[in-house]
């Protein structure tokens, strides 16, 4: 009887120790898990299916067009969302939001300390209802920031925030992670921080793994210009090739229609085409 009691005590003690070990391990592992997540506050667009298409309102000047096009192209490589560039609805200085979409603006916003600001509006369910991106030409017009690297990084990062993504890393002084969601002093790296990386796409899949019963995403309405472009055939009709990735299997073309109207065409070539 005595022996049995002692055994029970030992067992309880062992269970306790194992319990503490599990708790300690959980605490040791948990920070790693949380730091791997770059979901901003649980914010996301409500939608009833994937992939969903988010409109990016083009309120940017010609100096930013290519960067907007590339960022839209990059983020559209996600399996859960597509972006489409449409005519903007606001003045760049005010950059007012419009329901169900994201307005992208550039302006000389002044010596306020920031290169870019992404702002989202959320409802009580943490669903994003609209967003804006402001790019500050006060700094981008200076020699330090007037580089493709900085323009790609900030455009990409601010748009990424409007999907509900946070930064992957906020230390500017360490080695680049190879994503625009990483702070850096040198966008070119290596590795380059000008575009999203696989972790961002994986995070988007996590954020948008569930479906909602309603949508906060505006209906994608094709502009007449885009509809016209869809009827065109051949490379030349798509305008200038801005970016090519995946050994030329995907391409982004820009066609200037005049009066500030542009059409961006994303092409994913079948094997043997496009070269």
């Amino acid at each position, binding site marked *: 009887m005595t022996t049995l009691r002692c055994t029970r005590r030992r067992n309880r003690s062992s269970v306790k120790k194992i319990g503490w070990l599990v708790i300690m391990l959980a605490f040791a592992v948990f920070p790693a898990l949380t730091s791997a997540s770059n979901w*901003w*506050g649980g*914010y996301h667009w409500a939608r009833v299916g994937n992939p969903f298409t988010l409109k990016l309102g083009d309120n940017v000047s010609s100096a930013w067009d290519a960067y907007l096009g590339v960022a839209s192209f990059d983020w559209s490589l996600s399996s859960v969302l597509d972006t489409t560039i449409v005519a903007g609805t606001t003045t760049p200085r005010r950059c007012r939001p419009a329901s169900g979409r994201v307005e992208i603006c550039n302006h000389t*916003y*002044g*010596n*306020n*300390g*920031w*290169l*870019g*600001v*992404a*702002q*989202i*509006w*959320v409802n009580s369910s943490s669903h994003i209802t609209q967003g804006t991106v*402001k790019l500050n030409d006060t*700094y981008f017009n200076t020699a330090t*920031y007037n580089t493709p690297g900085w323009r790609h990084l*900030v455009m990409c*990062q*601010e748009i990424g*925030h409007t999907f509900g993504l*946070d*930064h992957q890393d*906020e230390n500017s002084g360490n080695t680049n992670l190879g994503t625009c969601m990483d702070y850096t002093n040198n966008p070119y790296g290596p590795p380059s921080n000008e575009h999203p990386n696989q972790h961002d796409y994986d995070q988007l899949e996590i954020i948008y793994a569930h479906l909602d019963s309603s949508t906060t995403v505006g209906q994608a309405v094709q502009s007449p210009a885009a509809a016209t472009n869809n009827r065109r055939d051949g490379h030349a009709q798509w305008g200038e090739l801005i970016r090519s990735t995946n050994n030329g299997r995907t391409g982004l073309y820009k066609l200037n229609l005049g009066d500030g109207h542009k059409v961006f065409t994303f092409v994913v070539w079948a094997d043997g085409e496009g070269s």
Partner: protein
Amino acid sequence: MKPFQLPIYLLFIVTVGFTACGGKLSGSTQPRHDPLPGETVTDYESLVDALHAARVQVEAGEEVDQPFFSVEGRIIKVHEEDIQVFQYPNVTVRDEQAALVSSDGNGLGTAKIHWIGRPHFYKKGRLIVLYVGDTDNVLKVLGTVLGQPFAGK
């Protein structure tokens, strides 16, 4: 005069004498209290005064408009660096605004900011003060006048 009345009379004279000289006496025995730089900061003017008191040259700069703050700010230059000063109607409103700032200073409510340097947010009186940068002597003087930043790195 009765013999016991003499000490009372003397006590009265001594008491009156001390009371009459009270200001002088206390002035000579207690240490004079000069306010420390920043101790009296409540608004823009008193901030500038405090910086002057700390022997810092201050230049008035342009106005600054931040999309995430409800008031327009003013820039002052300290050691050639821009310091943004936002003055609110009262401390309650200031606290409401300060509560929106994330601890790292990169988020304000539902806005994400890509700063050109490290942000440092201070609050004092009716003010929120923002410095974006890492210049040591600027951080030192702001620490002296405004205390520790409440947000930023």
